[in-house]
């Protein structure tokens, strides 16, 4: 049986997607953040690999085609952005203010907590790009001399947590305007948060898409300055 799974290109991915769908049904039924389809899909797949003693490499033989689609899918985020252009133009001040504030807050929070928790310079710069999209964050971490594998892991965990709890955070802090919600998802939880913002609404999705690009680029610039602070 094991050797079959090692041969199969579709077993791992199919299971991941089944877990995702089950998560989606549970989420609909119980409306709890913990029944996040993405989280459930990841958790079930990890358990599957662990129990079946299957290497990640083998799972990824099939699963990498899903990852491969990420670049064209991210390109397509320009579509909702284009469709919401008028809204964006009419609210450009709010958008710019919100996104700049988000990037600065991310860098300041990481700096303050790194000081408090006594992190080394390398650990600090590893965490600096944690709020932005993986591909940009990896580059920033590498450039500043961080541990790239940890940066990637933290970025993904950040995204999944943002995807899970973003709606709750918006509710608790009374972030109600669709534009603001979208910007908040994108600037705190990049593309994985955007996936959730897309589900909430078109405006939220478009603003979140914009936030991925703008926050990512702003972080490239500002993190090189912040790297000198610890």
């Amino acid at each position, binding site marked *: 049986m094991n050797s079959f799974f090692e041969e199969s290109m579709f077993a791992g991915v199919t299971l991941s997607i089944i877990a995702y769908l089950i998560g989606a049904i549970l989420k609909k039924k119980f409306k709890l953040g913990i029944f996040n389809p993405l989280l459930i899909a990841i958790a079930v797949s990890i358990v599957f690999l662990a129990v079946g003693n299957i290497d990640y490499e083998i799972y990824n033989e099939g*699963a990498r085609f899903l990852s491969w689609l990420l670049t064209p*899918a991210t390109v397509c985020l320009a579509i909702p952005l284009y469709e919401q252009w008028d809204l964006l133009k009419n609210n450009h001040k*709010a958008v710019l203010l919100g996104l700049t504030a988000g990037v600065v807050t991310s860098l300041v929070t990481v700096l303050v907590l790194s000081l408090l928790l006594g992190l080394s310079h390398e650990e600090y710069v590893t965490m600096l790009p944690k709020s932005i999209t993986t591909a940009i964050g990896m580059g920033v971490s590498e450039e500043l001399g961080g541990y790239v594998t940890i940066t990637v892991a933290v970025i993904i965990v950040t995204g999944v947590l943002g995807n899970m709890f973003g709606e709750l955070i918006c509710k608790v802090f009374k972030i109600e*305007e669709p534009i603001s919600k979208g910007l908040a998802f994108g600037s705190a939880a990049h593309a994985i948060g955007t996936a959730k913002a897309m589900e909430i609404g078109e405006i939220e999705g478009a603003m979140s898409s914009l936030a991925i690009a703008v926050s990512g680029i702003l972080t490239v610039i500002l993190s090189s300055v912040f790297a000198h602070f610890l």
Partner: protein
Amino acid sequence: MKYVKQFFIILLISFVGELFKYLIPLPIPASIYGMVILFIGLMTGLIRLDDVKDVGKFLIEIMPLMFIPAGVGLIESWGTLKPVLLPVCVITVVTIVTVMVATGKLSQWMIRREKKGGSDHE
């Protein structure tokens, strides 16, 4: 042929994004260049919305699935993550909240201020 054409345009833009990444020495991924290229294409009318819309919406809808492999890949980095787990968790959780609140609240304040200013003096 509709889907072939749309898929082709989206992949072509992804490829041009890769070219940009290759030529420009910045840590910006091909996908972000591609997103900007498609956006400019749509704004200038060089690319019509109908040229990319159906396949684009499909890709966006299944986007969450594309993060599963990377998430499962966390088992690979568990070893490096374990020693710094506590500080990393604290920073991750706190930052999500501070960033969402800063971005959400400030933009909302500005949106509501402009709405008010546009309608009446209060």
